[in-house]
């Protein structure tokens, strides 16, 4: 039974790659799409220059994946830029400044944010936030990278918060006492001693948060507008990799080119989040061992 977790990870990897592999050698799939077409700009009929386009359902299906990568990065960037500072500051407050009675209420309350299903956050972004943002910033498209990114930040705040708070609290008391004894003020101790000592833990929390931001599906599916546009504007609609899989898989022909490409995107996502999470965990393990010795 203990083997089942390992088996699950291996099975996931094998069965997703299995469906994606025909992309490498199947002639039938190559008539629709090749890896080169996906990654490089193509001169499609009717265009003046070579472009990256994701347009899988058209007379000539186009599978340029750069628009999706850029879209994913934009949404992840917005969510991290908002979520990480908020989560780390809140963790600092709860671990350093809050009185025990306040902490006992505030900590579970923030972690309750993790109990909000992502489809509910997506719903809230779509129905409530999108209109507010549009009125407020006079935006052209109601659903865009900004709305999706802000909603997504709510999903990664509990992840980053929990791990950072743990890291702050794991800083040995002796560090704080030594700093205070040397005449440091509270803010000096926090900024120059506690923050550096906890930084590997924060980095790990940020890594796990990034994994969540890149892989989150329902929020971006509902709030990003899902138009595969490649530019750097944060207020245009975007289409991310997970949202593409979720919205297109239901309509594809099993085993066809489009189907294979979607599994390829899944495999890509699995590898990206795998690497990100693994490095995060590595840092957490090392920190625990180090602090175990230091304390």
């Amino acid at each position: 039974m203990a083997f089942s977790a390992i088996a699950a990870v291996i099975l996931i990897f094998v069965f997703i790659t299995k469906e994606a592999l025909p992309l490498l050698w199947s002639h039938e799939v190559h008539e629709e799409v090749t890896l080169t077409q996906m990654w490089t700009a193509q001169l499609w009929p009717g265009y003046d220059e070579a472009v990256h386009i994701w347009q899988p359902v058209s007379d000539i299906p186009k599978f340029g994946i750069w628009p999706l990568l850029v879209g994913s990065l934009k949404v992840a960037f917005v969510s991290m830029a908002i979520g990480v500072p908020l989560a780390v500051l809140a963790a600092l407050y709860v671990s350093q400044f809050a009185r025990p009675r306040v902490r006992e209420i505030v900590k579970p309350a923030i972690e309750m944010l993790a109990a909000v299903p992502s489809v509910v956050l997506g719903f809230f972004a779509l129905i409530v936030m999108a209109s507010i943002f549009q009125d407020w910033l006079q935006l052209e498209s109601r659903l865009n990278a900004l709305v999706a990114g802000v909603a997504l930040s709510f999903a990664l705040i509990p992840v980053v918060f929990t791990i950072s708070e743990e890291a702050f609290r794991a800083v040995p008391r002796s560090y704080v006492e030594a700093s205070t004894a040397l005449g440091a003020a509270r803010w000096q101790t926090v900024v120059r001693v506690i923050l550096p000592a906890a930084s590997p833990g924060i980095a790990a929390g940020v890594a796990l948060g990034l994994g969540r931001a890149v892989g989150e599906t329902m929020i971006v599916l509902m709030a990003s507008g899902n138009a595969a546009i490649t530019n750097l504007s944060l207020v245009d609609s975007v289409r991310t990799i997970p949202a593409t899989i979720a919205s297109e898989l239901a309509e594809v022909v099993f085993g066809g080119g489009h189907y294979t490409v979607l599994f390829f995107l899944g495999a890509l996502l699995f590898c990206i989040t795998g690497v990100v999470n693994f490095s995060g965990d590595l840092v957490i393990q090392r920190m625990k061992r180090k602090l175990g010795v230091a304390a």
Partner: protein
Amino acid sequence: MSAPFKRCRGHWAADTSLRVATGLATALILAVLGTIVIDVLRNGWSKLSIGFLFQSPTDGMTAGGIFPAIVGTVALVLIMTIAVVPVGVATAIYLSEYSSANSKFTRAIRVAVNNLAGVPSVVFGLFGLGFFVQFVGPAVDKTLFGGEKVYAQPALIWAALTMAILTMPVVIVATEEALRAIPRDLREASLALGATKFQTIFKVVVPQAGPGILTGTILAVSRGAGEVAPIMFTGVAYFLPKLPDKLSSQFMHLGNHVYTLATQSPDVDATKPLLYATVAVLLGLTFSLNLAAVVVRAKMRARIANAR
């Protein structure tokens, strides 16, 4: 601790601004959570009624209730729980009671559990489709139904098993934490009285870890009720005229119901009250489950602290 420095004005200003900045960030996060809850309750409250909970949707989803979605969600999490709890608890028992902390196998399991916890939910959906629906399903049909297409399509059982794999890390982590918190003395007392290791684990250790297992199960159920991406291609349906009655049936689901009402409705304003009420039910469910988990865990920690 920093009392002597409070008299120095520069430090006082820096201390205070740090305190205010961190406090504001905390307040902002809580305000967001509060806004979501209040908005959902305020707009969903009027539609909530016994009838809403026990009727089927009617008039193209603009009237009626969410009974089939509730039944589908319950069926999904029940089958998921039956599948995930034994496997998760067994893995946790192995990790905490049998394995040596630094063996390669133990480390491989830990890496796998952490990795599993980080796999995006839509990837679980792809996996469920590629593995259960298209690989296991046809094999089952071939051996049990002579090739008739019964299980080689999206079904309740495949969605539940996909969800079970997704929630496995939750159960493992919560159970292992509980097992590790049990004092060594208890195990040693049992062994000293002549119990075998097996008896010690199943008659002494596991019953003590009951609240931890319960916490993990509750959190897993909460995930199962809210996650949509893993079941999208493995068994959930937008609307079904009848309730699921077999493992091979398709089913409706609260989370998916929210998604479809919010995005696929031809008349958004007409479905909005129902949508809000559905979100209120779903949020009420996941919140009470998570609160229950917090309470169970707090009680368990208090009891262990007392025992020491």
